[in-house]
């Protein structure tokens, strides 16, 4: 291989191992978290690619793969990991070597997975992670002896500390040279089925691992409460409740700041630019539209602060355990909980995370109900309407607005269960695969990984504002501004379009502005808010981002509530249908999802509106 070839093609290592063994922590620590694929919270559903340099300056490419047990690829994400190692992922060359990672505390349980991985026929090393915690729990591993037993290099590691990663980096500096020149040893394949490999692994650990048996670890003490059949469910409900309360009560000051910042910016632009179309485009179109959505950034950040914390601490798998028997009633299993919880942030990573579900029918059912979880794009709509119609007071210690939001989330969940039960009895009949997951030890999250995850989520939201909300706002501004001689919204292009669909939406209490806003909101649900902002701004009824006041004065309570009910189901989000199309490889499922969501949204809004009118709120 010539010098230029070597420079053009760095050594590529694949990080393989069971879920939760710390692969992603090591990946983030080595590469600084700069990965090619956005990392959604929840499980690593896509592989990620990054680069880092060794102490001698050599560049190494690293693949962070989904967690995998065994080598048969029972679920979609396991198959991705195995395909990546075998070089069967389209557009990706195979890795040059495997770095197999194992949580040292689980060495007896998972060592046979390394023997299985030897059979991929690549140079391989075993990295024992979290050696510090294993030692604390009374585990003693004779590393040279273990290496001899397995016939591959074994390195100890504490992925989250620089000093803990040093032995690995030192080893890689030597090893990658050999890997690059093809002179690294490829270990002998392991013959035999999984049972024989387990016996081989067991005899290896008997000779190299000793354990001072600890009766009760920290994790077991906590689990006594957290996994208690009754108390545990109350703890879970409590956590979710606090989470949604916090989203409302902690976000106020930051939101006020952003709101006044937007108002200030509109003031500055209005002062600098002469009155006219350009000023209107920027102030009423762009700033009003994007600002109306950006203002919800603090709430999104708080929501994710909780989700990421639950994930990183090891609690999320417990939640799956706790809800499993409830999910079973809908024909699903606890594994579906993680994709569904991710869907509270966004249905897209949720639909993708369903890849961890082994049974295809369960996966389809989970994908179908994922859009019913209250995703972050609904929050701007909820916040706006709740802010306009629900008084700020408290019920006991709870914020009244927080309670209503919590209620909307519950309605979404209840319908998700009803729909899942229906799907499992009709379209996706069959027994569900079991819940078979590891409950990781509790650990305090790595602060840097945590902040990076939070930053990534915030940026995804902000980027959406730029990529989707901004163009949508401009389109809405054009439609609401032209033709120039229009004296009311009725005579603009937007009004004409709105008037066409108004007859369909009027029976469920929607007005012209709402009808108009729903069209661009097909792109993304929160566009409804930015569109309303632009519509009212162009009409000159809004000064300085006081959307809630306008809504409160122009809409009846019944109309507002009907709008809320619509958005519990809202068949609006092209990206979600696109990802369903991709993940199911058919048009049938996205079309079906759209149709059933539309019917539910319409019926829910109708029932809500007419009930509210009957109670005199019309």
């Amino acid at each position, binding site marked *: 291989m010539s010098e230029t070839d070597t420079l053009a093609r760095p050594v590529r290592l694949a990080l393989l191992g069971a879920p939760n063994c710390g692969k992603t922590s090591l990946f983030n620590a080595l590469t600084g978290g700069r990965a090619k694929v956005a990392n959604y919270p929840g499980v690593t559903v896509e592989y990620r690619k990054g680069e880092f340099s060794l102490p001698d300056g050599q560049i190494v490419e690293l693949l962070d793969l989904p967690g995998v047990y*065994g080598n048969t690829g029972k679920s979609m994400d396991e198959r991705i990991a195995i395909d990546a190692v075998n070089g069967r992922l389209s557009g990706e060359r195979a890795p040059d070597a495997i770095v197999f990672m194992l949580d040292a505390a689980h*060495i007896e349980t*998972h060592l046979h997975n390394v023997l299985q991985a030897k059979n991929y026929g690549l140079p391989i090393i075993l990295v024992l992670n979290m050696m510090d915690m294993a030692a604390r729990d009374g585990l003693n591993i004779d590393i040279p002896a273990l290496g001899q037993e397995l016939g591959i290099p074994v390195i100890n590691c504490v992925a989250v500390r620089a000093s803990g990663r040093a032995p690995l980096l030192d080893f890689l500096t030597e090893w990658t040279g050999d890997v690059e020149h093809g002179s690294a040893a490829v270990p002998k394949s392991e013959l035999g089925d999984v049972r024989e490999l387990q016996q081989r692994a067991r005899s290896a650990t008997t000779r190299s691992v000793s354990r001072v048996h600890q009766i009760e670890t920290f994790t077991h003490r906590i689990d006594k409460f957290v*996994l208690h059949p009754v108390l545990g469910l109350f703890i879970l409900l409590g956590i979710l409740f606090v989470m949604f309360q916090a989203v409302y009560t902690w976000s106020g000051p930051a939101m006020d700041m952003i709101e006044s910042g937007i108002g200030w910016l509109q003031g500055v632009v209005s002062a600098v630019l002469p009155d006219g179309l350009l000023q209107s485009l920027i102030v009423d179109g762009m700033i009003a539209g994007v600002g109306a959505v950006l203002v919800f950034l603090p709430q999104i950040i708080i929501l994710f602060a909780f989700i990421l914390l639950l994930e990183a601490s090891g609690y999320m798998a417990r939640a799956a355990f706790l809800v499993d028997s409830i999910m079973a009633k809908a024909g699903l299993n606890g594994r579906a909980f993680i994709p569904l919880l991710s869907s509270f942030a966004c249905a897209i990573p949720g639909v993708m995370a369903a890849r961890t579900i082994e049974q295809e029918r369960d996966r389809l059912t989970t994908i179908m109900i994922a859009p019913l979880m209250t995703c972050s794009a609904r929050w701007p709509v909820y916040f706006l309407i709740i802010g306009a119609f629900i008084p700020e007071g408290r019920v006991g210690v709870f914020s009244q607005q927080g309670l209503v939001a919590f209620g909307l989330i519950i309605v979404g969940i209840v319908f998700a269960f009803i729909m899942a039960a229906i799907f499992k009895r009709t379209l996706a009949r069959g027994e569900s695969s*079991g819940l078979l997951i590891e*409950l990781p030890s509790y650990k305090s999250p790595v602060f840097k990984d945590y902040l990076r995850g939070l930053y990534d989520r915030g940026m995804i939201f902000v980027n959406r504002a730029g990529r989707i909300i901004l163009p949508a706002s401009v389109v809405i501004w054009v439609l609401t501004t032209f033709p120039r001689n229009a004296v009311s919204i009725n005579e603009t292009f937007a009004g004409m379009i709105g008037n066409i669909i108004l007859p369909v939406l009027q029976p469920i209490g929607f007005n012209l502005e709402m009808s108009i806003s729903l069209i661009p909101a097909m792109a993304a649900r929160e566009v409804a808010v930015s569109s309303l902002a632009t519509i009212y701004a162009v009409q000159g009824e809004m000064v300085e981002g006081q959307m809630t006041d306008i809504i409160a004065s122009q809409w009846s309570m019944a109309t507002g509530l009907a709008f809320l009910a619509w958005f519990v189901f809202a068949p609006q989000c092209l990206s979600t249908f696109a990802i369903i199309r991709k993940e199911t490889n058919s048009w049938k499922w996205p079309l079906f999802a759209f149709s059933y969501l539309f019917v539910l949204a319409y019926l829910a809004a109708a029932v809500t509106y007419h009930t509210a009118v009957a109670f005199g709120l019309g």
Partner: protein
Amino acid sequence: MTSIPTRLTDIARSNRTRILGFSTTDPVQETRLRDIGFAEGDRVEPLHFGLFGRNPMSVRLNGAIIALRRKDAQVILVESVQS
């Protein structure tokens, strides 16, 4: 004392047992259990049970904790271990 093969689902909480084998006609089910770490000779101890029908259950398996449904747990045959 002779060992009597018992289903893991018939073991009470916090009783230590050793795995004797698997009694399933479904090779996929057995592979799934083996892949995640269940093997002959392993120490296994039920820890927690779910609210409805004591389902699912969590067990201590060597140094790890695994959650599984009774449907899977009942094919794991174990014997009691004197502590």
